[in-house]
């Protein structure tokens, strides 16, 4: 049985950790109490998925403490896609960021349920059910905002246009990823693309939003070249571990 490379597992873990942290920032600030709960709950799902991935990565690395991986690396050592570190901005941005990410992760987890790596299969088996809810939730809000008032439509369209160029990274294949594909640990992103596009395009169209035609895509997250937003996020995420090294709850 093939085993995943820890660097590949960490990429996936970082995507989920960083987006989970972003969603947690809505605590105390969401437009309604129900949405605050929803964002916190989705963030918790992502954090749980990240935790399982960090635990596995630390096992692959011969027992490195998973907290050190999650909390004590430097900015350029995080390998998440840039999309997930994008600031919350307004509620529309958060909804669209989630739609773009979850519409990718749902079929991706589905594919990972038949990975050659047994641990990834197990993590994916649970995560795929959670991701289905995340797609549904962000889809419903995209429809409500897009097909809502002139103000909400305009703001959510701006979010779609701004975030579009951050979606290309989800499908990137480099040498490490190619190895994972060859070992049948990870799926070919090309096989995920039609499902992603179908979900995203159908949702945007139903929400009366324009699907961007821009083809130029941002890149850099997978090699640790981040936007300035990540550093600010990490100062909060890492504060407790840096102020009180090795603290535990």
């Amino acid at each position, binding site marked *: 049985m093939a085993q995943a490379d820890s660097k590949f597992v960490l990429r996936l873990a970082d995507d989920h950790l960083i987006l989970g942290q972003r969603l947690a920032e809505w605590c105390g600030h969401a437009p309604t109490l129900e949405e605050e709960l*929803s964002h916190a709950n989705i963030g918790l*799902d992502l*954090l*749980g998925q990240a935790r399982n991935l960090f635990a596995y990565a630390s096992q692959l690395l011969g027992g490195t403490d998973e907290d050190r991986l999650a909390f004590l690396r430097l900015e350029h050592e995080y390998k998440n896609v840039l999309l997930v570190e994008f600031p919350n901005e307004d509620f529309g941005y958060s909804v669209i960021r989630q739609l773009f990410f979850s519409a990718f992760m749902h079929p991706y987890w589905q594919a990972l349920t038949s990975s050659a790596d047994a641990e990834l299969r197990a993590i994916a088996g*649970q995560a795929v059910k959670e991701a289905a809810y995340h*797609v549904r939730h962000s889809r419903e809000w995209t429809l409500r905002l897009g097909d809502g008032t002139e103000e909400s439509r305009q703001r959510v369209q701006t979010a779609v246009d701004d975030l579009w160029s951050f979606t290309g990274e989800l499908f990137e294949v480099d040498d490490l990823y190619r190895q994972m594909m060859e070992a049948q640990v990870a799926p070919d992103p090309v096989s995920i693309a039609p499902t992603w596009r179908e979900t995203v395009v159908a949702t945007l169209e139903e929400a009366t939003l324009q699907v961007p035609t821009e083809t130029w895509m941002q890149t850099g997250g997978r090699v640790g070249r981040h936007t300035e937003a990540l550093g600010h996020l990490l100062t909060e995420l890492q504060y407790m571990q840096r102020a009180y090294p090795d603290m535990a709850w």
Partner: protein
Amino acid sequence: MVAQTRPMDPLLDRARQVVDTVPDPELPMLSIGELGMVRSVQWSETGRLRVALTPTYSGCPATEWIRDRVTEALTEHGFTDLEVWFDRSEAWTTDWIRPEGLEKLRASGISPPRPSLTVVGTSQRSVERIVECPLCASSDTERLAEHGSTPCKALYRCKTCLEPFDHFKCH
């Protein structure tokens, strides 16, 4: 002579019972056995008691707490050489909640999950699903929010008796 599928082991039966009856912290009227979280309770080759649990959700904050309570309960009953581990090889599903667990959920005002006959869809605007009011049994209900007081629940309202209630999501 009756063929026995496994040798009698009262000590192991006792351990199974202890594990089975540990209450869930978020739904204290249910035990982790009724919730379907206990995969196996066995002796290892060296005589260590091994307990396999399956967490309900990836991000369930109670996971470690439950492991500690199981360890505590077994220790109180004299089991000292033990190991509690998480078996994620098969994902937990609400279908594993025992019938008496479903009944207890209903009795405490939480509409229980229905058998997950279909995979939760993502393409429809919202999945049409009949959720019964746990108070008056009306099926004329509406969803107020996708998430409720814990990650495993959604908030509903009964249009017949007008009471809001939690629904344990199918998973």
